[in-house]
C-alpha cells in the first residue's frame, strides 16, 4: 500500500525537479516538445482508441492553433491569453464542420479524408502569404503572459506545458470512468450494441474528434508562444503520421500511452539524428527513417499493445466490424 501510494507523487516530484538538474536548454526543450506532443496524442488517443476513428490530419489542427496565435498576436494585437483561447476554439470549430461528412467515411477512406484535410491546411500555410507569411512564416510572437506572469523562459514553459499535460490526463481519466467514457468504450467494442444502448455513435465520434482537435489547437498555440516563431514545416503530413505513431506505439486505450509514445518517438528521433552520422558517416535523413521504422517494427512485435499496456488497461484497443449483425 505504502509503496504504491507514494510511487506516483515521488515520480511527479522527481520530474518537477528535472529543470534544476539539467541545465541544458537542449534537454529542456526536448521535454517541452514531448509535453506538447503528449497533449495532442492524448486527444488523438481518445479518437483512435475509443471512438475507433483514425486521423492523419492532426498536424493540421496543431498548425491551426499555432498560426491562430501567431496571426492574432502579431497582426491584430490580440492579447496572448485571448489568442490562445482562439487557438483552441478555431480548430474545434473546423473539426465540427469537417467532422460530420468526414466521420461518415470508414477505415481507409477516413484516413485519406483526414490526410487530405491536413495537406490542405499545410498548403494554405505555405500559400496564404498575406496572412501566414508563406514558407518564411511569422516571427516576433510575444511571450505568453497570464495575469502578469510572463512565460519568458524555458523553465517556466516546462512547468506550464506539463501542468497542462497533467490536467488533460486528469480530465481524460474522469471522462473514461464516466457515462460518456463507458459510451466511448462501448463504441469501440460493438457499434451495434452501443446504438442499441441508445448511444448516438455518430454524434459521440464527432465530439471525440472535436475534443482531439481542441487539444491539438491548444498544443499548437502553446508551441507558437514557446518558439515565438512559426512556419509551415513542422505541420506537414509527416507530423500527422508521427502523432498516429505515438498513439499506437504508446498503446491505445492506456492511461500513460500518449506520454510514453510521444517520449519514445521524440527521443528516438533525436537519438538517431545523433548516432547515425557516427555509424554511417555522411548518412542523410533517409537512414533515420529506416532505423526508426525498424525499431518501431520490433517494438510492435514484442509489445503489440504498446508501451502503456502494463498493469491495468483502461480498455483494449478498438477493433470493430461494421456489417449488420447476425
Amino acid at each position: 500500500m505504502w509503496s504504491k501510494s507514494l510511487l506516483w507523487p515521488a515520480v511527479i516530484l522527481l520530474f518537477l525537479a528535472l529543470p534544476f538538474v539539467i541545465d541544458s536548454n537542449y534537454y529542456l526543450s526536448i521535454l517541452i516538445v514531448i509535453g506538447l506532443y503528449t497533449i495532442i496524442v492524448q486527444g488523438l488517443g481518445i479518437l483512435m482508441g475509443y471512438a475507433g476513428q483514425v486521423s492523419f490530419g492532426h498536424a493540421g489542427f496543431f498548425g491551426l492553433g499555432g498560426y491562430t496565435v501567431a496571426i492574432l498576436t502579431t497582426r491584430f494585437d490580440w492579447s496572448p491569453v485571448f489568442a490562445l483561447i482562439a487557438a483552441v476554439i478555431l480548430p474545434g470549430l473546423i473539426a465540427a464542420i469537417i467532422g460530420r461528412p468526414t466521420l461518415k467515411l470508414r477505415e481507409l477512406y477516413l484516413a485519406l479524408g483526414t490526410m487530405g484535410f491536413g495537406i490542405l491546411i499545410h498548403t494554405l500555410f505555405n500559400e496564404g502569404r498575406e496572412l501566414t507569411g508563406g514558407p518564411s512564416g511569422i516571427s516576433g510572437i510575444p511571450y505568453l503572459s497570464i495575469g502578469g506572469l510572463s512565460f519568458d523562459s524555458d523553465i517556466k514553459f516546462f512547468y506550464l506545458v506539463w501542468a497542462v499535460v497533467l490536467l488533460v490526463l486528469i480530465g481524460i481519466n474522469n471522462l473514461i470512468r464516466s457515462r460518456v467514457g463507458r459510451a466511448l468504450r462501448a463504441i469501440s467494442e460493438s457499434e451495434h450494441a452501443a446504438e442499441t444502448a441508445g448511444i448516438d455513435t455518430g454524434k459521440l465520434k464527432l465530439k471525440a474528434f472535436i475534443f482531439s482537435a481542441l487539444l491539438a489547437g491548444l498544443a499548437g498555440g502553446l508551441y507558437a508562444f514557446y518558439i515565438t516563431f512559426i512556419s509551415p514545416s513542422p505541420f506537414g503530413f509527416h507530423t500527422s503520421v508521427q502523432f498516429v505513431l505515438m498513439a499506437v506505439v504508446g498503446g491505445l486505450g492506456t492511461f500513460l500511452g500518449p506520454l510514453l509514445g510521444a517520449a519514445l518517438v521524440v527521443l528516438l528521433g533525436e537519438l538517431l539524428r545523433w548516432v547515425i552520422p557516427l555509424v554511417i558517416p555522411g548518412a542523410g535523413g533517409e537512414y533515420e527513417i529506416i532505423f526508426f521504422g525498424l525499431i518501431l517494427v520490433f517494438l510492435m512485435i514484442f509489445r503489440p499493445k504498446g508501451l502503456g499496456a502494463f498493469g491495468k488497461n483502461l480498455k483494449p484497443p478498438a477493433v470493430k466490424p461494421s456489417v449488420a449483425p447476425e
Partner: protein
Amino acid sequence: MLLEVQGLTKHFGGVAAVRDVGFEVSEGTIFALIGPNGAGKTTVFNLITGILRPDSGFIHFLGKPLDGLKPHQVSAAGITRTFQNLQLFNGMTVLENVMTGAYLNGKTGFVRSLLRMPGINAEDKLISKQALTLLSEVGLESVADIPAAALPFGQQRLLEIARSLASGPRLILLDEPAAGLNSAETKTLAIFLKKLKQNGLSMVLVEHDMETVMEVADRILVLNFGEGISEGTPAEIQADPEVIRAYLGEDDQIA
C-alpha cells in the same frame, strides 16, 4: 397496438430475405418469430431496429412510424434487443455492461464528465445501484465486477438480456436467447421471460428451441424463405401441416 409490421420486404442482391411480412404485437405479450435457418428472422430484427432499411413496408411502434430512425433513436423510442451472435462489451465489467445499457437514463455529457462536475457521482451511483438490482434478477450479482468476456456462455446470454432491459424499454427483441444454453439454463430463461411479461414487458422472441417457444409465446409467426407461412397460437401452429412441411429436414422439431 404496440408494434405493427406491414408488408415488410428486404432484398439482398436478388434474394428476398424478407418478403411481405406483417404481424402485430400487443402490449404485455410475447410474440415468437420462428422458422428454419436463413428464413429472415434476424433480418426482421435488423429492419425494426433501423440497422437495415426496408425496401418497402411499414413499421409502427405505439402508433408512430419508425421509418428512417437510426438504431439509437429506436432504442430511445422504447425498443431494445439482444444479438444472436453476442455483442457484449467484452472489455467492460458485467456491471459496466448493464450501466452502459442504461445510457439513456443518464444525462451527464462530455464536458461535465471531463471536469467531473458535481452531481456526476450521484447519477453514477444511482445507475450502478439499478444495474446491480437488474443483475441480481438474472443471478449475475456475484460476478458484477469481472470482465464480461470471462463469463461462461450461458451467463453472457443472460447479461445481454439484462443490458437490453437496463434502459427500461417497452419492447425487447430477443434473438435466440436460448442458443448455447443447457436445459437447466433454458428452463430458468423461460421462467425469467414469463416473469418479465408479468411485469408488463412485451417481447418478440426468435428461438429455435420449440419447447421454450411453445411454453412462453402468446402468438407465433412462422417464416420460411422470407415469407410468413402461418400465424397463430402455439396450439394452432403445432397443428398446421404447412409448418411441419417447412420444418422437414430441419434438426429442430415441433414439440
